[in-house]
């Protein structure tokens, strides 16, 4: 699928290993990476961006501005967007976490070539786009030229069969895959998902899976464009062609996973590859101080619904702080309309406006010395959510919510599982 997208963009058949200079459909920057790109653009004498319609800027990391410095950074991006007539600048009030926002708003679509100055740009592979994270200089390069350089990567094929058991979702699949291949298992390569099991993975779960391809070093994490994708795109006004791997496609390796054999996963500190099944981790009775549910990985409506299904009518354990961050204004509104906020607040959670916030130790829930958290985010590196002596366990919204109730890392009870959206 990777070669097909690159071939379509290059207008000829390309091969793995080739270097290409290609026009991108969308280039993305945020309040951390765009200021560096803007500085570079200006340093190199940039006057006017090549194509303002190609550029999307989202102020999501330290917003609503957490301090004076971040306010200055966002101001720089806001002023640039205004001066350059970049319509797709998303500020507080319209803003969502970039990787929740862009697909939701139809700013990226199947078959697109997307480059983003944020490592989790690989999220849009869920739509069958080739979408990859880069640094700020590449974004500045697009400001100048509309183009970027690419090396057509080798591909790891992950062939899926079966379907998830209740309470198991995309987060568990990707944590399991990373535990198999390691944090550099897909370095310089794209991961492609194929096989009959893909049809049983919901759109929101696909976003979660593709989002964390980078945690295995992957350049992209691509799903086929099937009926589910076509329906998602149609809701946004796009008619897109199906995309699936050719028989006999060239892979560096193939990994087979039966979705039905997976159990909820927890990645222990301090690497996303430290995944283990909940049944094993549960035995250790790990006490927690905080739970975070949200982020570009798990801040979509299905995630909110799953958390609410577990929390409904129950109370967060004493001594645990549970913070919920819907990923966009639309997710926020939808969750509110469905009555999920009532469930969250009554159970003792704090509900926040969309922001990346605590995921990267920015704000809205920083950990103190020695504290332990369960989070639905994507990285559990040393000090990622705060103090260098804090520790972080990664899991799905189901596990995070169940742990918030018990005060230690644990799976949900059977009665709670039955309330979950089927097919999740």
């Amino acid at each position, binding site marked *: 699928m990777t070669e097909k997208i690159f071939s379509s963009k290059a207008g000829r058949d390309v091969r793995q290993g080739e270097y290409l200079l290609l026009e991108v459909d969308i280039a993305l920057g945020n309040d951390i990476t765009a*200021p*560096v790109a803007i500085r570079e653009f200006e340093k*190199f004498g940039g006057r006017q961006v090549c194509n303002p319609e190609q550029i999307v800027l989202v102020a999501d990391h330290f917003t609503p501005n957490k301090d004076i410095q971040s306010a200055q950074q966002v101001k720089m991006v806001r002023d640039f967007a205004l001066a350059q007539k970049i319509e797709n600048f998303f500020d507080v009030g319209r803003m969502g976490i970039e990787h929740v926002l862009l697909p939701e708003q139809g700013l990226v679509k199947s078959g697109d070539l997307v480059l983003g100055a944020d490592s989790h740009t690989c999220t849009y592979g869920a739509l069958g786009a080739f979408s990859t994270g*880069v640094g700020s200089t*590449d974004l500045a390069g697009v400001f*100048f030229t509309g183009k970027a350089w690419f090396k057509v990567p080798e591909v790891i094929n992950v062939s899926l069969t079966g379907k998830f058991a209740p309470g198991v979702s995309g987060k568990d699949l990707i944590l399991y895959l990373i535990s198999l291949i390691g944090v550099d298992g897909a370095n310089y390569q794209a991961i492609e998902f194929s096989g009959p099991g893909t049809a049983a993975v919901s759109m929101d779960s696909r976003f979660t899976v593709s989002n964390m391809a980078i945690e295995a070093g992957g350049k992209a994490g691509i799903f086929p464009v099937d009926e589910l994708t076509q329906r998602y795109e149609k809701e946004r006004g796009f008619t897109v062609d199906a995309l699936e791997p050719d028989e006999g496609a060239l892979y560096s390796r193939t990994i087979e996973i039966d979705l039905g054999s997976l159990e909820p996963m927890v990645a222990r500190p301090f690497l996303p590859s430290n995944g283990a099944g909940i049944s094993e981790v549960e035995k250790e009775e790990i006490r927690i101080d905080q739970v975070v549910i949200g982020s570009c990985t798990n801040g979509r409506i299905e995630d909110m619904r799953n958390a609410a299904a577990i929390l409904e009518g129950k109370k967060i354990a004493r001594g645990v702080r549970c913070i919920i961050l819907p990923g966009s204004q639309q997710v926020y509104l939808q969750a509110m309309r469905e009555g999920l906020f009532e469930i969250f607040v009554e159970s003792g959670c704090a509900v926040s406006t969309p922001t990346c916030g605590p995921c990267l130790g920015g704000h809205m829930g920083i950990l103190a010395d020695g504290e332990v958290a369960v989070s639905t985010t994507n*990285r559990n590196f040393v000090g990622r959510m705060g103090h260098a002596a804090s520790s972080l366990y990664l899991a799905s919204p189901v596990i995070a919510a169940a742990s918030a109730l018990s005060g230690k890392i644990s799976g949900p009870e059977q009665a709670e599982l039955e309330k979950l959206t089927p097919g999740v």
Partner: protein
Amino acid sequence: MLREGLVFKFGDHVNTDEIIPARYLSTSDPEELALNCMEDARPGFGRREDVRGSILVAGENFGCGSSREHAPISIKAAGIQCVVARSFARIFFRNCINIGLPIVEMDRVEEIEEGQRIRIDFTSGRLHNLDRKTDYSINTYPEFLQQIIQSGGWLSYATANIAPERVFEERR
């Protein structure tokens, strides 16, 4: 191109949160970033005087995690001449090429120790350990990447070769 310096040694999977923690990302000023370079891998590193002119040597997957270009920028601005590793995370590798920070991939990094002096000759593709008096071959870059490196980075290359009309007259 030749680089010679004192070695600071790091392990496997050094991530960009360790290279430049997010709490220092509310600025994009290179000099300020340099002061906090490698802060969560080795506190105080960016403020040591002997870091300027040195060479970082690490294991596998150096620079994994976030795409923040602040990470290679902080290394470059700290005056570090070059990073040698067994392998680099893809985005970090790309960012180094793009900002013109020399990086070297070589297999036998375990034979280089902290405090030794090494010399890297990019032209001949050799790395010399001056203390051990040993000599290794290093991976060379494909031609396209060499052109970017020789131009001094992606923007120098792109503005000169792809979009000169978007640059101010006086900068051409």
